[in-house]
């Protein structure tokens, strides 16, 4: 490149004039194009492209405390609006969703609370969010009964984590629930590390019952051909990742197993690449594995997902407008759903 090539695009200074919509603010960020603002604006552009690409399947990978922090209804709404097609989640996020479905709550708290005192009151802390242990216990009790019901229906046959999520969604009636929304909209949820959450300890409780005829068997290996098939059938694939960990790698690995690589990628994380851990690995590094295509539209947003993700969604939904209708590639031949205004 010549010297002048480096000096083509001057930074446009952000102007805040009176009332500004979220998307207008994102456009200002795009004009700046710099640092976190530039990355966030680019993430909006890429997510919008994924949704406008009729041949793209959109994967949402969820890790971290997405639900306790208040993003439960946002994710359920994305499912119902067909703005995500497949979810890959930690077990914990679906546990948190089920807790709220069964009338439990997450409470605003403080990271400075006395943790020994919280222990004595049976209150758990998720940074500055509190949850009462009894909400987990009620979940344990009710889900252990569901496990028994599912195991009886399946008559000892093992099920995939995707089928497990579907069975729970069938039984949880709250329309704001992620599991319920996915069940009703036929959006697959994969929980590859299903035992690494309260789901695992509920299984212990369920299996501990004397004279239990059928013990629920969840086999996460059964998910692998299913998620690879989705990636394989879809002409293009995109991922939006909150955090990283097992959900991010499950999506990426499915793309490479399908011999494709992701065409679009937005990753929101605060992790760093130097440790070699997956959550902080850069998308350039991911290209080296073939999990994301070299020519893919991709961006890593460094920031708190609770701030970044709602901004991205709000901006893109505003751009799409209320008339936008999307038929996911997986649902071709089935009626499209108009988003509510």
């Amino acid at each position, binding site marked *: 490149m010549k010297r002048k090539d480096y000096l083509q695009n001057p930074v446009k200074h952000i102007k805040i004039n009176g009332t500004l919509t979220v998307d207008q603010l994102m456009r200002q960020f795009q004009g700046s194009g710099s640092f976190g603002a530039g990355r966030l604006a680019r993430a909006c552009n890429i997510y919008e492209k994924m949704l406008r690409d009729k041949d793209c399947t959109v994967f949402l990978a969820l890790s971290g405390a997405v639900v306790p922090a208040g993003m439960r209804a946002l994710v359920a709404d994305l499912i119902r609006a067909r703005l995500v097609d497949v979810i890959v989640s930690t077990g914990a996020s679906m546990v948190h969703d089920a807790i709220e479905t069964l009338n439990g709550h997450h409470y605003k708290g403080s990271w400075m609370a006395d943790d020994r005192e919280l222990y004595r009151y049976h209150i758990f802390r998720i940074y500055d969010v509190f949850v009462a242990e009894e909400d987990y*216990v009620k979940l344990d*009790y009710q889900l*252990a009964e569901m496990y028994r019901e599912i195991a009886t229906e399946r008559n000892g046959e093992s099920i995939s984590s995707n089928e497990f999520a579907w069975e729970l969604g069938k039984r949880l009636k709250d329309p704001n629930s992620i599991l319920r929304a996915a069940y009703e909209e036929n959006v697959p949820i994969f929980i590859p590390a299903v035992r690494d959450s309260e789901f695992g300890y509920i299984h212990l409780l369920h299996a*501990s019952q004397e004279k239990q005829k059928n013990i629920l068997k969840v086999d996460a290996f059964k998910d692998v051909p299913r998620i690879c098939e989705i990636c394989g059938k879809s002409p293009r694939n995109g991922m939006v990742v909150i955090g990283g960990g097992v959900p991010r790698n499950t999506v990426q690995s499915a793309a490479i197993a399908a011999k494709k690589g992701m065409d679009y990628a937005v990753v929101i994380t605060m992790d760093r690449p130097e440790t070699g851990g997956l959550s902080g690995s850069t998308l350039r590094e991911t290209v080296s594995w073939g999990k994301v295509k070299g020519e893919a539209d991709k961006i890593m947003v460094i920031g708190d997902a609770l701030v970044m993700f709602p901004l991205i969604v709000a901006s893109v939904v505003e751009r799409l407008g209320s008339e936008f209708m999307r038929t996911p590639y997986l649902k071709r031949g089935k009626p499209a759903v108009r988003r509510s205004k």
Partner: protein
Amino acid sequence: MGSVEKEKRFCGNCSSHNPYEYPARIFCSKRYAQNKEPIVDTLWCCGDWSPVNQDCHCVRDALKKKSGA
């Protein structure tokens, strides 16, 4: 276990307890495994009692509630 005075043995300070309706009722995982009603009073106790390894306020607050304090 043997050194704990019998009158201080409550479900609310047993190792099998988890709060169900704090502080009055607890969920007993041992009774659940035995197919018995798992939700019992915090201030109840059975022959399978074993001490918790960390104190909580269940018994203290259940006693307060019972006395109307």
